């Protein structure tokens, strides 16, 4: 990444472009890039600087990392909604001032807030801006904040979920400023000459996962794993009782992937058997005393409940899985909410499991990409048998619209690619 940052900054400050885009695959050091870019802009005097993130949690995470990286005495203003209570990790820093108006922040040169908060400002201009998670932001949000800055660095992961809306409308399809598109898509359609940089290495995904995720979801840009064969290892210290759950956990520990395949069946979204299987697998990982050996912990670190996550497509599925977990403090969430997070082991309820049809929602490549790229060591996918057949029966039927750029990867193809890989890691329930 050290090689990308100088090029990014020189494009941004050269004066010939108003914006620079940096595409980052999962775990490629996007946040580090934002922090380092900020530090460089502070030391070069490219100030005042506004920083935009998408959620309060992202803003707070970023502040913690910024404070650690910036020289003492550089103040950071945290623009927040009224009623926001700063968590202790923010409030404990004297460098950080919190306020709901810019005037309340004092003479700080770095102001950071959520896009939604920035959109409430009707005046003020910052010469420099960094927009984090720009692919998660809808273009109408960018429209509301773009008059606040002169030049901006947009950072994000193009493979993640596209922003969505509760209303469906085709009336803007094909317009260059379609408000349903991501901020970066609209930005690049109006400014096709903007430089686009890519971070080439994923530090999160192990070498068992990077090629799979790269080929399925980033077919043209591609990336590699920062760690090699043997750098990461998942050990199981406890003995297993045999049986499919153990077989799946062992398969995942050995190869980084496992497909825990339930018998084919059409089910409700909240498939009780599949939900229970997700919870049981998570529990079995803990019971087997999994230990993660990596470049960060050469002597091994135990995989605790907080290092395991279970992902699903829908909120009711999340609730169903949670109901089988009892008091275990394991993260269970939807793909949308798991974006940007990292765990040692993830368990994924496949979006197409038990379905009779493959809708655009369930085929969206970003959903599966998020779910299968959160792990540092292993990913176990839970699914009903027959997904490849379901895919074959439902080829993409989305209409082709005039004036809409073709988007890659194709969700159907990405799903096929992942299933083809998982076929070699199958643990089937007889």
């Amino acid at each position: 990444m050290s090689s990308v940052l100088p090029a990014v900054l020189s494009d941004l400050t050269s004066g010939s472009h108003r914006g620079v885009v940096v595409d980052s695959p999962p775990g490629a050091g996007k946040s580090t890039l934002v922090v380092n870019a900020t530090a460089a802009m502070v030391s070069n005097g490219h100030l005042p600087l506004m920083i935009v993130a998408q959620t309060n949690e992202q803003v707070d995470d970023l502040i913690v990392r910024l404070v650690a990286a910036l020289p003492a005495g550089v103040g950071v203003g945290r623009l927040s909604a009224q009623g926001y209570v700063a968590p202790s990790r923010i409030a404990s820093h004297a460098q950080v001032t919190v306020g709901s108006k810019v005037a309340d922040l004092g003479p700080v040169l770095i102001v950071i807030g959520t896009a939604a908060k920035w959109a409430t400002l009707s005046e003020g201009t910052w010469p420099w801006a960094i927009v984090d998670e720009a692919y998660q932001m809808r273009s109408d949000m960018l429209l509301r904040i773009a008059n606040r800055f002169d030049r901006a660095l947009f950072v994000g992961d193009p493979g993640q979920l596209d922003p969505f809306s509760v209303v469906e409308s085709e009336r803007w399809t094909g317009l260059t400023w379609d408000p349903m598109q991501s901020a970066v898509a609209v930005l690049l359609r109006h400014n096709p000459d903007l430089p686009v940089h890519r971070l080439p290495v994923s530090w999160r995904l192990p070498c068992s996962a990077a090629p799979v995720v790269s080929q399925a979801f980033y077919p043209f840009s591609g990336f590699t794993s920062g760690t090699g064969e043997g750098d990461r290892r998942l050990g199981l210290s406890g003995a297993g009782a045999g049986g499919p759950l153990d077989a799946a956990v062992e398969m995942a520990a050995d190869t980084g992937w496992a497909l825990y395949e339930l018998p084919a069946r059409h089910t409700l979204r909240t498939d009780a058997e599949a939900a229970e299987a997700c919870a049981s697998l998570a529990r079995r990982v803990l019971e087997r005393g999994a230990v993660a050996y990596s470049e960060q912990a050469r002597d091994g670190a135990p995989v605790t409940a907080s290092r395991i996550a279970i992902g699903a497509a829908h909120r009711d599925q999340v609730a169903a899985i949670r109901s089988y977990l009892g008091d275990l403090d394991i993260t269970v969430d939807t793909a949308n909410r798991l974006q940007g997070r990292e765990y040692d082991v993830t368990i994924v309820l496949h979006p197409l499991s038990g379905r009779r049809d493959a809708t655009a929602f369930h085929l969206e490549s970003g959903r599966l990409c998020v779910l299968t790229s959160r792990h540092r060591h292993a990913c176990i996918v839970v699914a009903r048998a027959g997904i490849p057949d379901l895919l074959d029966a439902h080829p993409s039927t989305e209409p082709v619209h005039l004036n809409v750029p073709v988007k890659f990867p194709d969700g159907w193809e990405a799903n096929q690619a992942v299933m083809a890989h998982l076929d070699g890691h199958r643990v089937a329930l007889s």
Partner: protein
Amino acid sequence: MSALTALARVSAVSSGVAQRIATVRHVHLSDRPLVFIPLALAGEANAPLAALVGSSFDSPQLLVVLQPRNRDERFAFAARLAAVFLSYVDSFRGETETVPAGRNTDPRERYVDAPQILVPNGGGVGFVRLLGRSTRFRRTEGEYAVEPSVPLLGRWLTFFAERAEYPGSSLLLNMTGALGMHWATGQSAVEDANLAALVGWIDPPDGMTGADAALEAEDPLTWPPAGPATDPTFDNEILAPAIEAGSLSRLESALRRQLEPTWELMWRGVSLLRNLPPGARVERRWAEDRDAFTGYASYVDEGGYPQARRDGAVAAAQRLARLERAQVLYDAQRAYDDPLILAEYRLTGEAFAGTVTASAPDRIDDSGKRRVLRPRVTVSSSDPVRFEPGVSVVSPARPSQTGRVVSVSPLPSGFEVVLELSGGMGRGLTAPPGSVPEVGERLTYTTLTESYQAPAAFPAREETPWTHGGPPVEYVPDDDDAVEEWS
């Protein structure tokens, strides 16, 4: 499809008749709707072929185009439709009422009633939209001039079609959509788009099951398609020879036979919907429709431009924000009005029902600058409660009161939820009797909210930022406005 709808569809199959999925009617139904059944010529983009239109069952008016490929006749059809349509719309521009000033609005006048257009299906809405698009920019003088009523019709049709996108609006309804909101049949969603099959499931003739009636509806001789597309066999064997012969009377009688069964179905649909009691908030949404109607009528009077062909960057973002806000409100209002819809949210974990087991109506919170009344109630529920502390919930029985979840603790069966209440209790430090739920009361709480939200701020049109193409050029009406890229 939600679990309850899936269940209703299954029981529709086993019982042989469509099942209600709503306890009340969620659309407004006018006393005098304008039923409009358009037909288009196959193979041409939205070329009007015929229409049956009228605001009472006994007096449908048949409009026919002798040669649908002739564009002059197409606009002559639009002029004849305009005569019916615009006089119907104008008939609502009589009595007004005064709406008092609101939070950010001045007092205003509003018509006491508004027109309502009913088309058979989603395709009918599309026909209205496209006919509006092809007529609203037409010139009334010079080359290819049309009747002055034609562009005016185009603007009104566009108004109705755009309003149909607005969640909760009833100005332009499609019958299959309106019926499908209230009944689940034992057939697929694609089959539900056939009006005859859908009405057959809901109200099968004596001695028949819904499935029998739907099967019969598949025969285009008994039940011709409800438009805008026509039956291909009819096209080939009856329509083509009649157009070729150029005989108006032959064409009229053939098309009347195609349209009349649908006309009957439309009015059967109207009476099916009328038999449902309206939801409590339907009237409120209709008032918004009347506001929109009043606003557009005066905009037309003031000589405003026809609706733009496409939205600019700012207009698109603003419209999306309005639509999203309306959708959230509409979802909440339907759930508040209808326990069956609220039950769906209980199943997805966005609501829970329970009985009040403890109540502290006089609890005062004095931790802040000011002492405030913050009663607490404990609700025990057998639903799987999935709320975190801090979440705000509202009970449809007490919509002005907000409860903040203080704690959720598991019971042997179910959960116990402690809520801290605010609002709906007057301004004093003692709660008026009845304003705080009492022990033994059964309530449902949900996160759906119909509370006011300030509209989002957008840059002015001329301040469109560089990320979105910069400020657009000013619109100047032009002879080429009506030209399509492909025409």
